[in-house]
């Protein structure tokens, strides 16, 4: 096994070991030793991930399936293990397989570093945060299980494996949201998260089923190699002559995306995430800010090459709706964690939008940078909440910066990063997303000859939301840390604890340098090239071309494009040896430059406008805002947004009440017409038959029956003494008889 894969595998298994240790010995270890054990294991996991990344960057060759060379920009490590032969599959002579396996490329390595780092930081933070909890060890047990599941999800090489870990992650989320299950709201939130996620998983299963039916295999490299032409639109011809229709491909893609919608809290299924804030705050940082909710984005990133243009358009629409709704609702929240929750929803919408418009690098880039500053925001919020004696309403905060300066500064850095201030990490990723969204809109409007003006929404909405993001995050900061204290008693007791400094400062540094100096962008570009090269190798070994994408002689892994292919930075490089192509720009390159201009003109100053406006309005706490709220429509809008646009109420009416009413109506109908009718009809028939039978009975049967009865009575009286009623005696006799009979039979058989 190549070294990086081995290291990442160890990195995955260490949290499992921690889970085992804590499960059996956690109570004995107690507080705070249990937390330290968990932290030590995850620290080892982090060390392994970083070492793995170093070896990965140097690259190498190894005994491995398919590609001989692995390493950053060279090729992925693919280690399949065929597990269950299932039959079916696309070739008669080769049965389908359910595989498990590892798939390691630059994205995996980057995700590993991010997840283990955030997990480590959260573990450290939790030792302080949960210090007084009765179930201290249980908390760390769950955290370890979560880390294992999440890492297993990222390293998984097949959709099946991803699905299994996906569900495990969901289980951990359930356990951790409901960690304080004595609180009724926490228990309800956990159940809600679980149920809403199942709706998405249903789609995931459907998508996987379609793939499995047609291909007999759901491992990622197989899918990429067999369906790489899906991204161009149109049907895909498989090597056994069957056609995988484009409609079905779209349904498959949308199905898999539904899973991502549940996990990443996308628009119709987003309602569970704000409620999930009932869990302890470190959990929110670990699960509901970065690694877990990003799993949906990660999944879409992994299946990106096999998504059809229609599926991608669907994803872009959902992403666009989500980012707008999330940002709008975040404007009116008063609970600090709910602001962050809706902000997370909005940022996840950005990522989905990026993937939908074909900006794979942009989406994944934002996923990684967002992880840093959103965990920082949540941990900062946790610090505030501890300082404020478990109060979460911003109405009662204010002026806290004097009391908790480190939290205020680090939280402020995160606000700057999420607002897209230049030189902070969020700036680079958001700029890339907006640029590609702009390019997508330009191309789409061009291609539709000016009729598809609706496509401009894909640029206008995210740009507008960029202003809103800066505004609501700054509002959150101002209300918490600035102005006069609104609750003097709370203010007097507020102080921060030193245990929490390290995580906050570490994440703050990463939020600043994560954009440009950690090389995340390079890793992502390499990741694209790696899978492209791996597929090219697989396909070149094949004598005749498969699929319909053979226009270009070289296999470009053109799946990374929508119907309006936006040229991506990674591809410019790979085209480099062909001078001609670079000099005369393709339409998509032109569009990208145009997109860049659009961003420069409309979005660059979003952060300044948003931050400035929020600072101006909330300079003196709620004074200005309350004055604005006196204008009647503003008040209604605020209430509407405060209640989350009434999505929960809507779902209650449509789904819960609707199903109950409909079910009752159907039951009544069935009861009256089907059941009653059957029963009445049957009873009539039985009455007729029984009157016939009664005659026969009286005249023919009775005599025979009485005779038999007499006989049975006599035998019973004789056998009665053997019936002791002791079951075990019966068993003994029975088994002894069996043994004797067996022995006898064997002796007869062997002698004869």
């Amino acid at each position, binding site marked *: 096994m190549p070294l990086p894969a081995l290291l990442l595998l160890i990195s995955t298994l260490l949290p499992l070991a921690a889970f085992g240790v804590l499960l059996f010995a956690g109570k004995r270890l107690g507080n705070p030793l249990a937390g330290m054990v968990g932290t030590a294991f995850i620290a080892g996991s982090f060390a392994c991930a970083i070492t793995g990344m170093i070896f990965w960057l140097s690259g190498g060759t190894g005994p491995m399936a398919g590609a001989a060379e692995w390493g950053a920009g060279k090729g992925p490590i693919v280690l399949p293990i065929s597990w269950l032969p299932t039959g079916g599959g696309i070739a008669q002579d080769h049965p389908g397989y359910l595989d498990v396996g590892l798939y390691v490329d630059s994205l995996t390595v980057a995700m590993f570093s991010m997840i283990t780092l955030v997990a480590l930081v959260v573990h450290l933070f939790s030792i302080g945060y949960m210090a007084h909890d009765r179930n201290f060890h249980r908390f760390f047990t769950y955290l370890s299980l979560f880390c294992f599941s999440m890492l297993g999800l990222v390293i998984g090489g097949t959709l099946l494996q991803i699905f299994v870990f996906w569900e495990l992650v969901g289980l951990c989320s359930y356990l951790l949201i409901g960690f304080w299950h004595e609180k009724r709201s926490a228990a309800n939130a956990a159940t809600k998260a679980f149920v809403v996620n199942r709706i998405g998983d249903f789609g995931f299963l459907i998508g996987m089923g379609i793939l499995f039916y047609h291909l007999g295999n759901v491992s990622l490299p197989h899918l990429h190699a067999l369906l790489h032409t899906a991204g161009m639109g149109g049907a895909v011809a498989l090597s056994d002559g069957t056609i995988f229709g484009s409609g079905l491909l779209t349904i498959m893609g949308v199905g898999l995306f539904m899973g991502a919608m549940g996990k990443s809290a996308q628009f119709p299924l987003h309602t569970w995430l704000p409620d999930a804030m009932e869990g302890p705050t470190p959990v929110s940082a670990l699960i509901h800010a970065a690694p877990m909710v990003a799993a949906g984005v990660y999944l879409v990133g992994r299946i990106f090459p096999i998504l059809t243009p229609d599926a991608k358009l669907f994803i872009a629409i959902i992403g666009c709706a989500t980012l707008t709704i999330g940002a709008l609702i975040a404007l009116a929240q008063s609970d600090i964690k709910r602001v962050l929750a809706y902000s997370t929803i909005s940022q996840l919408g950005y990522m989905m939008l990026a993937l939908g418009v074909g900006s794979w690098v942009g989406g994944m880039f934002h996923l990684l940078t967002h992880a840093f500053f959103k965990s920082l925001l949540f941990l900062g919020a946790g610090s505030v909440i501890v300082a404020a004696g478990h109060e979460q309403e911003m109405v009662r905060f204010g002026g806290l910066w004097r009391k908790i300066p480190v939290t205020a500064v680090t939280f402020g850095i995160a606000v700057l990063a999420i607002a897209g201030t230049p030189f902070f990490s969020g700036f680079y990723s958001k700029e890339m997303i907006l640029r590609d969204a702009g390019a997508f809109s330009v191309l789409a409007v061009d291609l539709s000859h000016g009729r598809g003006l609706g496509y401009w929404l894909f640029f206008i909405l995210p740009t507008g939301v960029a202003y809103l993001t800066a505004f609501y995050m700054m509002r959150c900061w101002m209300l918490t840390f600035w102005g006069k204290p609104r609750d003097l008693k709370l203010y007097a007791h507020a102080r921060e604890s030193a245990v929490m400094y390290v995580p906050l400062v570490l994440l703050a540094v990463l939020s600043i340098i994560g954009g440009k100096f950690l090389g995340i962008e390079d890793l992502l570009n390499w990741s694209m090239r790696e899978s492209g090269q791996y597929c090219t190798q697989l396909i070149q070994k094949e004598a005749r071309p498969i699929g319909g994408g053979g226009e270009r002689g070289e296999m470009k892994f053109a799946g990374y494009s929508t119907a309006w292919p936006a040229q991506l930075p990674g591809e410019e490089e790979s085209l480099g040896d062909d001078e001609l192509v670079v000099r005369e720009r393709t339409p998509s390159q032109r569009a990208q430059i145009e997109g860049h201009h659009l961003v420069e003109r409309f979005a660059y100053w979003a952060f300044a406008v948003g931050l400035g406006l929020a600072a101006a309005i909330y300079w003196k706490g709620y004074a200005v805002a309350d004055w604005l709220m006196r204008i009647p429509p503003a008040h209604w809008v605020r209430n509407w947004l405060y209640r989350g646009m009434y999505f929960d109420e809507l779902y209650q009416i449509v789904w819960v009440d609707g199903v109950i009413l409909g079910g009752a109506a159907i039951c009544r109908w069935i009861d009256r017409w089907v059941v009653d009718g059957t029963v009445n009809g049957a009873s009539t028939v039985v009455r007729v038959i029984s009157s016939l039978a009664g005659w026969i009975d009286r005249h023919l049967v009775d005599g025979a029956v009485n005779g038999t009865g007499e006989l049975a009575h006599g035998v019973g009286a004789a056998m009665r003494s053997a019936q002791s*009623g*002791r079951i*075990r005696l019966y068993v003994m006799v029975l088994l002894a008889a069996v043994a004797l009979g067996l022995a006898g039979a064997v002796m007869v058989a062997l002698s004869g």
Partner: protein
Amino acid sequence: MTPMLAQVGLHHYLILAAMLFVCGLATMMLKRNAIGILMGVELILNAANVNLVAFNRFRFAVDAGGTGGLRLDGQVFAIFVIILAAAEAAVALAIFLSFYNNFTTIDVERGTQLKG
């Protein structure tokens, strides 16, 4: 390791199944807890299943006349046995619950009212 040990064949599975069977017998005879007896039955059923699958693997799983299908009767029977075991456990436990509600014990020695 001698060749006999290294080459795992039908024998090994049958002997293991015999061991399981005998353990099941002993469990049924020794336990006074009704659920213990049920566990003995489960052991015996498992022994039978190991036999079925082993015979299927070593004696029967040949391609039936090139039709592409293998004879997997042993495995099918094993599946049926598993289902029946589940059904049996459900009914048995329901009975035990009734028994427990009547006698407030699960010791089968107490249930002697059926004697003639």
